[in-house]
């Protein structure tokens, strides 16, 4: 744990240093309003602290949108993926649909979703859900396909039912892959959240950053980016805690 904290501190310092150098370079090479497009970390953090009262409600709203959609995507994606991967007959029908839909950029569905479900949070949640769900589903399906037949036989020969095979083998065996895909989904989800908050809303970190851009308040833009980063980091840490708690067997030599 202490080692982890030291590693995080070193990485964080390195990022801040690079950011600072980049900010100095931008100020040095560009002139006029462009020179302030990349504020240094102190200014950005100061803006984050000073405007926390404004940023906080946006942060909460974004966090709720992201959490609800990711939890739904992980639950639906992993359940559908495990069944598709484990049940050969279902896989034959579902896999072609998955291959067809997965590569389509989900952003194209945003206008349709907004028309169908209105301009409120439901549309945004559905959009983020769609961006994340297929990736989770494919990871879960592939993990379920690679389950060792010996594990299944061990449960079957001990009198295990189909439900018990899912409970004792399929779910625990695929959990590391599902959590790994959950981690990837956080990145995809935050990108989708930003896009979903660019228009038809007046709350959310995406909205906050976009409205700060419009008034050339670059320090506020970066304060919003820092809030996004904090949101992502919090979710990554949550997944890591879940992994350590439920997949301890996967980290035995670490």
């Amino acid at each position, binding site marked *: 744990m202490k080692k982890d904290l030291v590693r995080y501190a070193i990485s964080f310092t390195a990022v801040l240093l690079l950011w600072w150098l980049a900010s100095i370079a931008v100020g040095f090479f560009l002139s006029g309003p462009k020179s302030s497009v990349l504020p240094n970390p102190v200014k950005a953090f100061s803006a984050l602290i000073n405007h926390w009262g404004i940023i906080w409600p946006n942060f909460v709203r974004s966090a709720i949108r992201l959490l609800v959609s990711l939890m739904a995507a992980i639950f639906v994606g992993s359940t559908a993926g495990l069944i598709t991967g484990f049940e050969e007959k279902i896989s034959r029908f579902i896999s072609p649909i998955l291959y067809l839909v997965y590569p389509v950029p989900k952003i194209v569905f945003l206008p349709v979703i907004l028309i169908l479900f209105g301009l409120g949070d439901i549309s945004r949640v559905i959009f983020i859900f769609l961006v994340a769900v297929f990736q989770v589903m494919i990871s879960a399906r592939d993990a379920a396909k690679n389950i060792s037949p*010996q594990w299944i036989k061990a449960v079957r020969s001990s009198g295990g039912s189909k439900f018990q095979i899912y409970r004792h083998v399929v779910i625990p065996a695929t959990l590391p892959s599902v959590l790994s895909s959950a981690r990837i989904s956080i990145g995809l989800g935050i990108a989708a959240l930003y896009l979903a908050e660019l228009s038809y809303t007046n709350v959310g970190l995406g909205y906050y950053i976009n409205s700060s851009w419009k008034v050339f308040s670059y320090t506020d833009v970066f304060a919003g980016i820092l809030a996004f980063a904090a949101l992502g980091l919090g979710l990554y840490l949550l997944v890591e805690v879940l992994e350590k708690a439920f997949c301890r067997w996967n980290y035995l030599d670490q």
Partner: protein
Amino acid sequence: MIEITGLSVEYESGGENEKVISGLNLSLDKGDSLGVIGPNGCGKTTLLHTIAGLHENYSGLIQVDTTEDRIALILQDIGLLPWKTIWKNATLGLDLGRQGDECGVEDLLHELDLYSYRDSYPAQLSGGQKRKLGLARALAVDPEILLMDEPFVSLDEFTRESLQDKVLKLWQDRKLTLTLVTHDMEEVAFLGRNIAVLSQAPASVKTWIENPKMGTEGFRRSEEFYRVVKKTRQELP
């Protein structure tokens, strides 16, 4: 008791049915032991899995004098679940609703020198310990019939002999009906009071060797033991 009459098993392979076992007959009394040996791919594992109820597509008759939940199978690669601790692996059968009690499992783990590892995971055990855990898991459900598929494969000679001694003692103490599939002629002679030598696939019993002195004091070093090993070797196709 295990009574098999006219057993035939087919697998579908590349769109065609491949016969693995053909018209196999054998009979084993309650509390007796049988060692099954035969050439590679002759259907030994299939025979064991069919008795254990893992294959439903077979013809012929398999009769056992117990219910399905009193039959335990130790798989060739054991099939330990890596995400479960040693304790949870050993009590898998109980978790799945089979009979047996946790005190009995504790005693078993003590007997097999695994108790101190109860909170560890299978990846933290040696090959021999994993085999012992497979044995503990099978015996935890208090079976009447124990089926073992190559139970001590890829172990060093010393560990193998020590585990064979343990199985022999457990078989004697618990009055199990034991069926063991192996490639090892010494193992089959040491643990099989009856030895079935199978033919090339599709398998049937080529020769049945009786080994009445098996289990007696000092049998492993006796002339009779080497005579049985030699006879088994001669009968192998």
